[in-house]
């Protein structure tokens, strides 16, 4: 019934859960993350592109079980997540730290309605940052989220990340919490200019 056709193979949540224990860590963390989100039965993904999320965006784009939405600005994803949950779907929002600032008022939507929200935020402006324009929002990301009533979790290593996202997904979808997982810039690696 939807207009968009997506290419690629079908991966089920069950397959993803089974393969979780077998895949190697570290270099393959985006694939691990994808399997965790599949195991959590995520069916809709919204994103503003970021280099740190590029592999995950590609994996979801090739997944016919999941609807992907490219956004013009990050707060759109808060609204889409709300509509998804109203209709019975779990979703995830992928964004960069600079985009958290765009979301501030819209976060009242998920806290007022107590709608599950899982945001994966790639951090800029902290570890070996070259671009000073990334620094202000990088410093403000966690305080802004906290001020709006969003639970903030942070991952500095690939292993941390997988366990933290598993935990955040459970908190969001089982306990109707609003959770942001910050992927540290150290984990993502230094950007080459």
């Amino acid at each position, binding site marked *: 019934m939807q207009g968009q056709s997506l290419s690629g193979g079908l991966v089920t949540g069950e397959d993803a859960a089974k393969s979780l224990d077998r895949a190697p860590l570290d270099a393959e963390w985006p694939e691990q993350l994808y399997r965790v989100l599949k195991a959590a039965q995520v069916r809709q993904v919204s994103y503003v592109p970021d280099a740190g999320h590029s592999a995950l965006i590609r994996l979801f784009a090739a997944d016919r079980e999941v609807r992907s939405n490219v956004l013009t600005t990050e707060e759109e994803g808060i609204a889409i997540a709300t509509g*998804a949950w109203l209709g019975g779907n779990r979703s995830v929002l992928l964004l960069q730290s600079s985009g958290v600032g765009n979301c501030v*008022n819209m976060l009242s939507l998920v806290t007022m309605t107590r709608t599950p929200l899982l945001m994966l935020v790639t951090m800029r402006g902290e570890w070996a940052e070259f671009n000073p324009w990334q620094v202000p929002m990088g410093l403000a990301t966690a305080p802004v989220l906290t001020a709006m009533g969003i639970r903030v979790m942070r991952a500095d290593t690939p292993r941390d990340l997988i366990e933290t996202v598993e935990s955040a997904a459970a908190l969001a979808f089982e306990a109707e919490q609003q959770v942001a997982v910050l992927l540290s810039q150290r984990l993502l690696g230094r950007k080459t200019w």
Partner: protein
Amino acid sequence: MPASAISLDRRDVVARLLARRDGLLIVTGLGSPTYDVNAAGDHDGNYYLWGAMGSAALIGLGLAQAQPDRTVVVITGDGEQLMGLGGLATIAVSNPNNLVIVVIDNDHFGETGMQMSHTGHGLDLASVAQSCGFAEARTVRDIAGVEEVARALHSPSSGARFFAIKVKAENPPRSLPPRDAVHIKNRFRAHLGLGTI
């Protein structure tokens, strides 16, 4: 068209759109559209917004993607849609054929003292939606057009649709639905057979 030529009454327009309800799921933008939809008859399939300006159409998108067999109608105002203008681009990429955006367009920010909005200054929202790639997008100015939109809500489409309905700039007496957001969410989900946690 000069403002004096606009004769449609917003409450009458919304009542006509929802006269035949069937399985429609309704999302309302904050302010007058929320009151208009409540005035047409409260319903478990109504999702009312009291805030989060700019979110209505995108909540409609998320819902339409999650419920592909139901028609989702977003009823919002020109000011609310203008705050989420980029969302029209996002919706058009997905282009779900079960999503209809209806803007009750009075050319003004009615809730805050009737300041003129961008549509009052000449911006054509239907043209924006058309440019973004909606399957159908047009402006309606008379009762015959409203009745056509009401029928369209129950007709198949090749993609997302957008209708701007020009109405008189006035604030009818407020008709207030519940503003307990968790209650409205759970009531709506129960209407779809979905449980609470």
